[in-house]
């Protein structure tokens, strides 16, 4: 059920899009109104969620230290995994955000004969996660050509690089294949590893199916079901310049593609996909490990919590203290 329900949900989305593309006015709805709405919800939602997070203070300085701290001058500090300066934190966050540093560290516990527990390194999750995210990024950037005129140089360069194998016409993009492969890996991993399957929720499968749907319809559109590229470019460019118009026969597949993207954008702020923004705000990663050097302020620190007073302590134990030769304040 955990897998089936989200799968059905994505199929239902596709069906809705298919119907919408056929009924009068549906194309305008899916091609023009929905993208604006979805984009607004996406932006607004993400900003709202980030502000909601930011509203809560960070009461304590709790970085997870993953290396030697700044201590005596002759002890070599791990300035990135245990940063004591802002620069160190920036480096740490850079590695985390762009290279998935923590996942790279992943190990795999195995029982060997003996039995003996061995912790080997395991980089597959890291590899496919990074392929997935970077392909996604490249694909999104490549799509910028649809919204900009003239096409910026970096987009053209990206396209050229992505298609450098020069296979087929239109030129085949490697990212498309890698992207599908990475999604498939992430999905298969969830299904085949018993403990990962055990922890997975519908909310984990749904975005996978949805993104797979988006990629798949996109690939169909590009390589197999030819669509009117000029008309599409006109529409998308129109969207970007706030003068959208649908001309010619674009083809239903395009509307399915757009509809799924809109669904993803709307779903995004309400889901675990917010990890994209959350990683920047994670207190165990983005804080400087300098809590003994600089006092961190907790806005709700309660000044009324005071230790059991020394006076109260001495009152209770004064006789014992005197007998034991321990100095007291009041004789």
């Amino acid at each position, binding site marked *: 059920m955990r897998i089936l329900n989200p799968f059905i949900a994505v199929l239902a989305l596709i069906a809705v899009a298919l119907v919408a593309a056929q009924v009068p006015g549906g194309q305008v709805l899916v091609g023009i109104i929905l993208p604006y709405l979805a984009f607004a919800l996406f932006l607004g939602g993400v900003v709202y969620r980030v502000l909601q997070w930011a509203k809560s203070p960070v009461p304590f300085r709790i970085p997870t230290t993953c290396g030697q701290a700044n201590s005596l001058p002759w002890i070599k500090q791990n300035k990135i995994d245990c940063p004591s300066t802002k620069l160190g934190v920036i480096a740490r966050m850079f590695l985390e955000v762009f290279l998935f540093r923590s996942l790279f560290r992943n190990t795999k516990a195995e*029982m060997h004969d003996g039995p003996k*527990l061995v912790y080997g390194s395991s980089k597959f999750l890291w590899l496919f996660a990074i392929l997935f995210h970077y392909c996604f990024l490249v694909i999104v950037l490549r799509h910028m050509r649809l919204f900009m005129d003239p096409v910026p140089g970096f987009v053209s360069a990206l396209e050229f690089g992505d298609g450098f194998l020069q296979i087929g016409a239109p030129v085949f993009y490697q990212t498309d294949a890698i992207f599908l492969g990475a999604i498939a890996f992430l999905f298969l991993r969830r299904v085949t590893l018993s*403990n990962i399957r055990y922890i997975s929720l519908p909310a984990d499968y749904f975005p996978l199916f949805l993104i797979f749907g988006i990629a798949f319809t996109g690939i169909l559109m590009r390589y197999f079901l030819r669509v009117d590229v000029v008309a599409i470019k006109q529409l998308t460019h129109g969207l970007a310049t706030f003068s959208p118009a649908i001309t010619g026969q674009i083809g239903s597949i395009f509307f399915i593609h757009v509809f799924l993207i809109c669904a993803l954008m709307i779903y995004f702020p309400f889901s675990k996909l917010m990890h994209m923004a959350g990683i920047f705000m994670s207190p165990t990663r983005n804080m400087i490990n300098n809590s003994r050097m600089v006092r961190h302020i907790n806005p709700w620190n309660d000044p009324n919590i005071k230790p059991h007073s020394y006076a109260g302590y001495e009152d209770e134990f004064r006789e014992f203290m005197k007998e034991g030769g321990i100095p007291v304040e009041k004789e």
Partner: protein
Amino acid sequence: MLLQELLIENKGEILDAWVDQVLTTYPSDGARIFKKEKDQFANPVGFAVKSSLWEVYGLLFEKNEVEKIVSALEQLVRIRAVQIFAPSEAVSMAYTLKKVVKSVCRKEKVVDLDGWLAFEEKADILAYTLFDLYAASRERLYQTRIAEIKSGNNITTDGGCPSKLMEGNSARKAELKTINV
């Protein structure tokens, strides 16, 4: 066929059934998938059981090095001794093996009384060894407990200090203690 041959030829089948039954996993369909689970880290404890039993089986019936089973079983029994098992459950694996081999014998129609007697003797040795090891592990556990109490760390809760501040409760405290222990 002689039983000894059966034990070697059907090693895989016997061991799979044995491990399965020792793990006493889930009888229904869903479990079948997990029993096939080769991923060792998905269940380290389960894997420990598996690898230990394979080793013991080899020592008993292939290499005929009965004296070595102690070290092969030690860690497994030590793990089982701190799981929540009845003592019988913790050492029952010798009898489970007999059961498994019996059913394979029946299936393969092996009749070999001498072979069976030899096998049974080994299975019995396995049972004694398991019992010894289990008892030793539990004893070690209790010794560990006693050592911990002797070390003085226990007075954090048995010093009875703050409760002295509250009045008229020493009787109840004693009462509570008996419930707790």
